């Protein structure tokens, strides 16, 4: 009996000692939390490239929707043997952002020609087509297209009465306007609060056009880089 009481007393005393050493108590506890949402913008392919009016040539590396934009197009023959009014490449772009955005473009045109009759930046028409903000999760908003739009429209170009050369005359309607990084499109936030797995966004076609003419023979290489930023 005595041993039992003694053992119990020792056990309770031990517990008490623990209690003394850890007697702090509280009926409340706090969890503080924070998070950051940085400005986010991206540009991807909006889908397959379409090429029309071409003679020879073709889409070498096509665009795949929602994948990085990296397309290669061979416009084919641009001399008078191509009897089409225009060789036109339509490159769909897809933009997404959680903040106001600005898309700029820079282009370079180089070739084997050595005279003023070679294909130059001013001979490559450019414009952004119809801007679409559709689909679940895409915010409404008014975008500003800094280009004249489809460069093949009669209102955006014509034959120079003096030189006889076809000229793109609309606002920023040829690559000559993009020798340095130049604004092409801007607008308010594109996306509502939806996960990245939502594949909707703002889509817009980048339209490139060349009027087949008596250009100096040779080859021409055109490189265009689009950049989207959140100012």
């Amino acid at each position, binding site marked *: *009996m*005595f041993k039992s*009481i*003694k053992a*119990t*007393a020792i056990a*309770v*005393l031990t*517990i*008490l000692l*623990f*209690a*003394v050493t*850890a*007697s*702090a*108590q*509280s*009926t*409340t*506890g*706090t*969890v*503080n*939390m*924070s*998070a*950051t*949402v*940085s*400005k*986010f913008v*991206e540009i991807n392919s909006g889908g397959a490239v379409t090429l029309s009016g071409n003679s020879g040539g073709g889409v070498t590396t096509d665009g795949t929707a929602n994948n990085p934009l990296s397309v290669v197009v061979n416009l084919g023959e641009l001399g008078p043997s191509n009897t089409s009014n225009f060789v036109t490449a339509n490159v769909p772009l897809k933009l*997404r*952002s*959680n*903040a106001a955005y600005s898309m700029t473009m820079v282009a370079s045109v180089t070739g084997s020609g050595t005279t003023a009759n070679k294909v130059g930046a001013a001979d490559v028409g450019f414009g952004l087509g119809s801007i679409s903000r559709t689909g*679940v*999760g895409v*915010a409404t908003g008014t975008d500003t297209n800094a280009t004249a739009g489809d460069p093949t429209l009669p209102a955006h170009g014509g034959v120079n009465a003096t030189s006889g050369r076809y000229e793109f005359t609309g606002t920023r309607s040829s690559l000559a306007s993009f020798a340095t990084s130049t604004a092409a499109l801007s607008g308010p*936030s594109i*996306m*509502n*609060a*939806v*996960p*990245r*797995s*939502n594949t*909707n966004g703002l889509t817009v076609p980048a339209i490139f056009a060349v009027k087949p003419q008596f250009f100096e023979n040779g080859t021409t290489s055109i490189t265009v880089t689009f950049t989207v930023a*959140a100012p």
Partner: protein
Amino acid sequence: MRSNTYSILFLTFLLFIGGLGSTWAQTFDISSGGAPTITGNVGGSVTGSSSNTSNLAVSINFGEVSPSNTNNIVRVMVPIAIRSLDEYKVTATVTGATNVNVQALQRSDIGFGVTNMRRTGILSRDCENHTIAALFNRNPATSVTIASNGRAANPSSLNNLNSSTTILSGPPLSWLLASRLGSNAWIFDANFVVTPQFYASGTMSATIIFTISAGPTVPCS
């Protein structure tokens, strides 16, 4: 005679303990239940004591939750230890995490759930009939759905803690003392999740206060 003397001394000792209990110990206690963890984060962190006898004082930084965080979800698990000599309830209340821009991170975007109620040792009472409030009885990381507007939706979130809300209740938790011993608590995990999305840019901060107090009568079973 000698046995009676020891018995009297022992009874006095027990009374002494009782006196200490009323002097030093409350009936309820809440503390850290161990080291909190974070997964799926980019630039985030979580700090808190790994000892279940330390105060519950946790700081969570979810980090980047814009789409530049390509993880499906950022999850933080905070173990919380509770002790009581009587029936108890645990309530939670949130402040902060409000934004007038509905596209910004809101309380409803921070999922919350309670999981994994467990004993810590021999001085945790073996009553198993603890009740996690049905709304919060879930792992929020696996409960996210996509609403018709495309936004990730949490069935239970901080938006459900706008006022003091019971998240857990039950029978007495501890034997003898509700003071902080390593073995007299029950521990549950408070889970917080955020799905990275195209939220409007900015920052969010919030505070959640967990409180343990007397709860509804719940016989131990």
